[in-house]
Structures are given as structure tokens and as C-alpha cells.
């Protein structure tokens, strides 16, 4: 079944706030589907509508061919892993997991078997008789997952399940969650604001912004072919350019970018000469060299001055001034110290990128550039101004 879980035209307003503003999505059976977006984008509201805690003002939720919009939460074959886990403090680990089974009036033998299976699956067997206050964050999270999964839901809803954990643990739990999904094969609906989490665990990601879905696709599609400036900026870093189509040459066109020059780009949209385009170019697609790269027709070449260098360990991030633009460039270290001549602050460098690596955006909004949080150039000329707003 391809349309296992379907949201059809969901609208939900809180007063004047359009929490969910006309969302239609389809989730395939067995996949990990992420709702990704900044806080307040409506992703959690959509999850709560799916769980039955919120009734949408418009639209339907269809699960496995059944319209569940009007069903109360306890009648839906979905279970939730809550952000703060919401484990019952008056019960021990075993009884927390058994809660749903006991309500379903399963036999004592059944309860025992099922709970033990979940304890084993989540590696919590030795903690079965501990009370919730005795557990660490990661253990609580595993109990929350076990408590939901034991009811064999058709969809497991996860509401920022890793947000309360520290970075290292988060990465470990993410891997465990992924292998757990492979093991049980249940459809996951995963809500997160962390693009890294979404990219690594999802089969499909829906990027949400202001109550609307900006783009739905596989992690690679979302990253490599962002449809809007919001998606490009929210998922990873990017450089934005606006220009005008000067010439169309088969699959490629020459785009004139004011303050930078002409750039060759692959035509992934229907274009006309003279039409305005917005480009997104990922920092790691740009090659930075001290020596001039050999000229090739498929390559765009520019020259610029290094303004900022940020050493990140596995890579170094450079900010390079080219004309009116300040480009972010990522360079991965391969042979540290053996790399060609090291690039220093104020060096004049060559930038080059393949014509296929720039991507044309369908929608562009100035506001989205703020997501990239480029360092303010003004502060460099006035280093004494401590307050960023004072020289405005």
C-alpha cells in the first residue's frame, strides 16, 4: 500500500496563528517519515492531530484506508513517544511497558511475554523493576519507545525523541532507533527540528515552514535539489545568488549575476532569456585553490580574497569575498600539512565549481537568508562596537 497514512488538506489555527495551514502528505507503509522544521512550523501540531490530541478544523487523517479524524486517541492504532517521555512515575519500568496491554485486558501470560520481548529489544531487561526516577535519560527514552511499540501500532509517532539527550547519546540513540526500525518494520512518523537527525534516519522528509510543507522528498533530494530558499538554507549551509538569464545553450544557460559575473548553470527549470533566477550553491561544491585551475567549459571560475577562516577539525570553512558576494566554502582536509600551500587570511584564491552544482530555486525569500546567519561584515570595520545593533 502506497498511501498508508494520509493527511488530506489539514488546517488547524490557534486563534490568528496558522499552526497547520493546508497540509497534504502521504506516508508509505514501513518508512521513516520525518516532519522537519523550525519551532512553531506546525510539525508538532500535525503529529498531535495524527495522535488524536488535536482535532483539525479542516481536513482528514486516513490510516490504512480508514478515516480516523473523528476517533479519540485511545481508539487509534497509533502510539506516541513523547518529547519528555511522559513515563508514569508511580509505576516501574515493567508496568510502564505493560500499561497498554493491561488496558487491552490481555492475559497475564501474554503481558509477561510481550513486555519481556520489548525489554529485550530495547536492552532494558536488567532494569525491569526499576522505578522511573532511577533511570537515566537514554534509558527513559528506551522505555518510552518500548511502551509504545508493545501495542504494535500501525504508526509510531515520535515527537523530538532525542531532544532531551546530550549530543553523544543522541547520536548513539539515533543508530539504535534506526536498527530498531529495521527490526520491527513499523511506519515511523518522526518530528524533529534537527536536520542532521532527519537526514540520517529518514526515508522521506517533509520540510515545514509556517504551517506549510515546503518540500517533500528523500534526504538527498532535499539537500541536493532544494525547491525553495527556505529548504536550501534550513538544511545545511548554502550560498544564494540572484541573476538574470543571458543566454540559453542546450542544457545549460549563462546567468549574469550582478557583482559576480556570468555563471554557467544546468537548466533544471523552464527558462527564458531575460528571466530572473535564484541560485543555491552548497559550500562544499566550491573548490578553493591557490593556483589557477585549468579552464574548462563545464567549470565556473572566480577569484576572491579570504576574509575569514574557521577551523572545524574535519574541515575548514572559509569566507571568501568575490565582488559583491561573500561566499562560504568548505574544504575537507585529506592530508593535513601535505595539502598544497596552506591558505591564509587575506590570501587571493581561486574558486571553481562545476556547472551542474548550482541549483535553481523555485521560490526565494530574503528572510530565509537569515537562517544562514552569515557573520556581519560591518563588525569587522568597527571592532569596538560590542552591541551589534548600535551602528545601525
Amino acid at each position, binding site marked *: 500500500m502506497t498511501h498508508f497514512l494520509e493527511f488530506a488538506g489539514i488546517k488547524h489555527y490557534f486563534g490568528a496563528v496558522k499552526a497547520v495551514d493546508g497540509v497534504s502528505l502521504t506516508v508509505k507503509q514501513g518508512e521513516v517519515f520525518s516532519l522537519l522544521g523550525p519551532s512553531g512550523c506546525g510539525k508538532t501540531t500535525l503529529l498531535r492531530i495524527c495522535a488524536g490530541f488535536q482535532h483539525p478544523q479542516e481536513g482528514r487523517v486516513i490510516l490504512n484506508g480508514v478515516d480516523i479524524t473523528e476517533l479519540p*486517541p485511545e481508539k487509534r492504532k497509533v*502510539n506516541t513517544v513523547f518529547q519528555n517521555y*511522559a513515563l508514569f512515575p*508511580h509505576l516501574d519500568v515493567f508496568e510502564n511497558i505493560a500499561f497498554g496491554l493491561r*488496558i487491552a485486558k490481555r492475559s497475564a501470560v501474554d503481558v509477561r511475554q510481550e513486555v519481556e520481548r520489548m525489554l529485550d529489544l530495547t536492552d532494558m531487561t536488567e532494569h525491569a523493576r526499576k522505578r522511573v*526516577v532511577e533511570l*537515566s535519560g537514554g534509558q527513559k527514552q528506551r522505555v518510552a519507545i518500548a*511502551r509504545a511499540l508493545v501495542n504494535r501500532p500501525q504508526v509510531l509517532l515520535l515527537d523530538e525523541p532525542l531532544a532531551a539527550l546530550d549530543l553523544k547519546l543522541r547520536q548513539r540513540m539515533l543508530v539504535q532507533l534506526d536498527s530498531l526500525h529495521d527490526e520491527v518494520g513499523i511506519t515511523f512518523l518522526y518530528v524533529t527540528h534537527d536536520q542532521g537527525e532527519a537526514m540520517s534516519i529518514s526515508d522521506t522528509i517533509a520540510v515545514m515552514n509556517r504551517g506549510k510543507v515546503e518540500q517533500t522528498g528523500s534526504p538527498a533530494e532535499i539537500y541536493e535539489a532544494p525547491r525553495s530558499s527556505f529548504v536550501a538554507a534550513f538544511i545545511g549551509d548554502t550560498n544564494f545568488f540572484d541573476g538574470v538569464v543571458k543566454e540559453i545553450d542546450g542544457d545549460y544557460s549563462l546567468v549574469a549575476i550582478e557583482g559576480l559575473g556570468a555563471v554557467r548553470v544546468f537548466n533544471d527549470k523552464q527558462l527564458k532569456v531575460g528571466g530572473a533566477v535564484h541560485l543555491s550553491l552548497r559550500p562544499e561544491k566550491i573548490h578553493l585553490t591557490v593556483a589557477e585551475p585549468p579552464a574548462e567549459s563545464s567549470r565556473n571560475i572566480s577569484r576572491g580574497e579570504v576574509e575569514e577562516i574557521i577551523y572545524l577539525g574535519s574541515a575548514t570553512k572559509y569566507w571568501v569575498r568575490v565582488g559583491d558576494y561573500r561566499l562560504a566554502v568548505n574544504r575537507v582536509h585529506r592530508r593535513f600539512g601535505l595539502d598544497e600551500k596552506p591558505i591564509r587570511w587575506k590570501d587571493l584564491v581561486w574558486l571553481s565549481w562545476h556547472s551542474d552544482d548550482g541549483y535553481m530555486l523555485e521560490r526565494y525569500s530574503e528572510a530565509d537568508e537569515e537562517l544562514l546567519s552569515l557573520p556581519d561584515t560591518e563588525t569587522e570595520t568597527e571592532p569596538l562596537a560590542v552591541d551589534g545593533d548600535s551602528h545601525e
Partner: protein
Amino acid sequence: MSKLNGRLRGINLGELMLTLPSLGWLMVFFILPSLIIFAIAFRTADAYGGIGDSWTLETILRLVNPNYPGIIWRTIWLSVSNTVICLAVSIPVAYYLARMDRRWRQWAMLLVVVPFWTNFLVRVFAWKTLLHTDGTLRHFLVWTGILGADQPLLYNSGSILLVLVYTYLPFAILPLYAAAEKFDFNLLEAARDLGASSPHAFFSVFMPGISRGIVTASIMVLVPSLGSYVIPEMLGGVDSDMLGNKIAQYVYTERNLPRASALAAVLILTVLIPLLGMMYINNRRQTRDRKEITDTLSHHTGIRA
């Protein structure tokens, strides 16, 4: 000796200084008077209503009196019924108060405590007027047929229970609200999510969640209602005395202090025994929780408390 020393060393001098005032207060105004009352129960009465010179067991033996079990029983069932009714009313009230919008909540809380602004005796008199045989309420109830023409509203156990509930309701609502306010209402959603109906979630998750508030509220209502005196005195009939009235009768009318003391001792014990039991249960749970928390902390941090 070394064991005693160990225990004494365990008590911090600063902590001791801090508890001393409240300990002293309890000693002077609660423990000593109680012991004096226990002692008087074993003295003879003198002819002028004072305390005699010699010791006797007679007063205690006379407690086995056919009149007393009735009064003790009435005192207990009225107090227990009052506690049960107060809890049954207050738990839903606390639930809704805790979930109420903050703006309205303070007004609702004001409504709960507003009766305290009027003198207790005045309020009991008001009830007397309201329930009076010639009162509007009774006339109305007789007119609607709910009440028979010869059935009184006043001067029976029913009127006592009604005003007991009225009086002690805020004492149940306040601790229950304090507990409900700390309750994590996400837990109710979690229960619904796992298949529990709304009432089921209320009883299996909310009630255990505020269990400490329930214990406190029970103590706050049960203990003072066992010692009720004014309410049965003013609203009760000839056959609805509670222990408090009997004690007053021995002090003021019969002027027999040892007998009053013996009954007072019975009352103190009826209050103290269930109270100590409840405190023991609450305490054990608290130390268990605290131990678990410190164990977990030391387990995760390597720091020993």
C-alpha cells in the same frame, strides 16, 4: 555507645538549632498538655469540680459505658463520611483548578478561601437560619415534595455532616490543588495514547499522581472533624452528640475533670493512631524515593550523597 555516638554525630548542630523552636513549641503546647490530660484521667475527682489528691483506675474502667460506644461510633462515622465526601468533591475541583487558565485560576482560588474571611461562628449561625424549621429552604423543599411536612432539616446527624463538609472542604481543596498543580498532565495524554479512556486515565494515572495530596487532605479533614464541638453543639439534636460535646459536658455541666480527660485521651488516641499510621506510610515512601534518587545520582555521577 559507639552506635549512639555515630547517630549523634549524624545530627548536624545547625540543623538541631533550626528545629529547636518548633520542637520546643510542640513540647510545651502539644506533648506536655496531652501528658497532663492522660495523667488527670487517673486522678480522682473532688466534690467542687477540681482534681482530687489520689490516683484511681475507676474513671478509665467507667469508659466501658453503654453510652460511649454510640458516641464514639457516631464521631468516627461522621468524620470519616465527611473526609470521604470532601475528597470526592475536592479531587475533581483540584483537577479543574490545575488545568484552568492562569487568569481565571486566581479568581477561582479566591472563591475557595473567601469563606475564611467570615467568622466561623457566624457562618454556622447562618446555616442554622438557612436550615431552620421555618426557614425558606425547608418551606421550598416541602413545597416541591422533596421533603415531608414533618421532616426537619436541622438538629440531626445529617445537618451536622452537611455543615462539616461545608466547613472542611477548603482544607481538602488546598492540599489537593497543590498536588494537582505539580502533576504532569502530559501523563494523561500518554495514558489516552496507550488506549485508556478518559475516566480510566483519571483513576489510574491522575489519582496515583496526587496520592500525597490525598493523604494530606485526609489528615487535614479527618483530624479536626474528629474533634468537632461547635457544629454538633449548634446544629445537632439530643441524640447526635459527638465526643467533643461529651467532653464539654463533663467539664462545664458535670464538673468532672478526670472523666473529661479520660474521654479526651480516647479522642487523642483515635486521632493519633491513624495519623501516625498515615505519616509512617508517607514517610516510608518519601525516604524510599529519596534513597532511589540519591542512588541513581551516585550511580550516574559517582558522587555519594
